């Protein structure tokens, strides 16, 4: 089925005129009609617009145009602005908002020829680890619909795992790409902070947020990263580094590469089946000629606490813009403060309120130094752990998550337990480095995907992807399909 193809398979078949962009787009739309009632990866999608883009791509193909994603249907997390499409961040507060402009990553996808379609479900404002905090209902894991797909980019992961699109975009602030990719069995890449422009990405925590791809294999992640990356004058944290040919880095040769295994990640809460899969992956890396050594990241245990101060503080400031004045839903009040308070009280869901209150508190007069400034200093220690480790190793390998996908409702009543499910992914954002999750096995009963996380140096995506690709090509996991 065409919707099951990878990007590289599709683009070569499109170039040989064996298939058309319309056929593959229709196959994705048919799959959505068939399975999305069960999965609910999409908040909405516009079939007529997707098919119109497909026809335009087919006309370009006939003219002989060469673009890296020409005719490839790619679905978008509901946190990125796509001109003339709705944008809700899975929240009620944006009302009937229609984006007046394209995010930079969307401009880049369109310029590369992609068919940009759909609004993928997520935790409201990307705050959550299960996609249960959406004002538009739950997204289900395609491997077991009683379980969560992870979050916050749960729709992005589920849509790729269920072959409703060829690839998708998500955002990662503390693991929101890598964690759902692991739980749904696809590849999820968080680029180095500053690699990809954040312009047109609705801000959650500006010093941590990064846009990245969900794909069916590592080669596709490399292709998409090449399209998404690059300096952007509209994002002052975007870094003017040249964009290499990431796909060319996938040589399959990882002999002599040194990989660190942090001893702090082999914690008590780690599920035995997850541990066994990661151990087997480590063995596979040594068979492929890499050297795996134990390393220490001594401040690992402080990452979650540090994150929930910094991320909520930044969120409380960023979300101040949702005040019912310039856009979104409004609840009237007799004066501006009453209008703001009522609008925000009615528009935000429980997790967003929790984080705004926590973030406002840690920034408030008398507490700023004790919480926020202190956390920023601990962040320095966490970052230094990684920079020191990268003096002796080329990459770091860990589980992506402590367990496979948990049941819907299992952790939604206990915010702290939910926060702790991000324990392996959060440090990467605090340190500003890059990370990728690739499938590395399955639990036995039920059969649920397990993810392996590889972490790389700042702007070290080439060697990170080379490692991930070599491992993937030596293992069968990425070829397994969910059957929703």
């Amino acid at each position, binding site marked *: 089925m065409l919707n099951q193809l990878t990007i590289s398979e599709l683009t070569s078949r499109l170039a040989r005129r064996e298939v058309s962009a319309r056929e593959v787009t229709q196959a994705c739309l048919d799959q959505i009609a068939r399975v999305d009632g069960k999965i609910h990866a999409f908040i909405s999608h516009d079939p007529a617009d997707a098919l119109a883009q497909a026809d335009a791509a087919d006309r370009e193909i006939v003219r002989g145009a060469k673009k890296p994603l020409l005719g490839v249907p790619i679905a978008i997390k509901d946190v990125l602005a796509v001109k003339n499409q709705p944008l809700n961040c899975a929240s009620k507060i944006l009302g009937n908002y229609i984006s007046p402009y394209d995010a930079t990553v969307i401009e880049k996808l369109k310029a590369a020829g992609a068919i940009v379609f759909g609004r993928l479900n997520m935790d409201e404002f990307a705050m959550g680890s299960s996609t249960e905090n959406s004002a538009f209902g739950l997204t289900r894991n395609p491997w077991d619909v009683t379980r969560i797909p992870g979050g916050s980019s749960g729709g992005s992961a589920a849509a790729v795992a269920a072959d409703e699109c060829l690839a998708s975009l998500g955002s990662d602030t503390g693991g929101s790409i890598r964690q759902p990719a692991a739980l749904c069995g696809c590849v999820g890449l968080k680029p180095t902070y500053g690699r990809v422009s954040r312009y047109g990405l609705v801000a959650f925590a500006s*010093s941590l947020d990064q846009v990245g791809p969900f794909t069916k294999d590592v080669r596709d992640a490399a292709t998409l990263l090449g399209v998404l990356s690059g300096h952007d004058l509209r994002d002052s944290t975007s870094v003017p580094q040249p964009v290499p040919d990431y796909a060319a880095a996938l040589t399959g040769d990882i002999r002599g590469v040194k990989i660190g295994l942090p001893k702090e990640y082999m914690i008590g809460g780690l599920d035995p089946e997850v541990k066994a899969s990661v151990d087997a992956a480590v063995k596979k890396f040594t068979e492929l000629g890499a050297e795996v050594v134990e390393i220490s990241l001594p401040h690992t245990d402080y990452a979650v606490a540090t994150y929930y101060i910094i991320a909520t503080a930044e969120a409380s400031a960023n979300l101040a813009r949702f005040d019912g004045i310039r856009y979104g839903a409004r609840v009237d009040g007799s004066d501006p403060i009453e209008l703001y308070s009522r609008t925000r*009280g009615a528009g935000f869901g429980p997790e967003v309120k929790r984080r705004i*209150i*926590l973030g406002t508190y840690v920034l408030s007069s008398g507490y700023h130094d*004790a919480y926020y400034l202190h956390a*920023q200093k*601990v962040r320095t220690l966490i*970052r230094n752990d990684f920079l020191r480790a990268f003096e002796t190793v080329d990459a770091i390998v860990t589980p992506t998550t402590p367990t496979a996908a948990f049941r819907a409702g299992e952790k939604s009543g206990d915010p*702290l337990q939910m926060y702790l499910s991000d324990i392996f992914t959060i440090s990467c954002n605090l340190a500003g480095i890059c990370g990728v999750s690739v499938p590395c096995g399955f639990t036995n009963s039920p059969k649920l995907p397990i993810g392996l996380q590889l972490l790389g140096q*700042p702007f070290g995506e080439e060697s990170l992807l080379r490692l991930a690709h070599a491992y993937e090509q030596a293992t069968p996991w990425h070829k397994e399909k969910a059957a929703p």
Partner: protein
Amino acid sequence: MASAEIDVKYVAHLARLALTPEEEKQLGTQLGSILGYIEKLRELDVSGVEPTAHAVPMVNVTRPDEIQASLPHDAALRNAPRQAGGLFIVPKIVE
């Protein structure tokens, strides 16, 4: 670090966020346990450590000072909950 007590009503006012009494009560309990967990950061001696605001070592980033097209007026107003005469309509601020 300060105690893990949090005056939810006061902080909600700072955040311009209307909460129901039930929400205030629930948030108080939940944030108490989250702040209790965060207390572990007190174990670390950070004297002499510089804070990290973000991980990119760039400062004072500017773009060339050139006039560029901005969002057209009607596009900027299209999503406004209330507008008239090319302006956003808000409650009276000054008597």
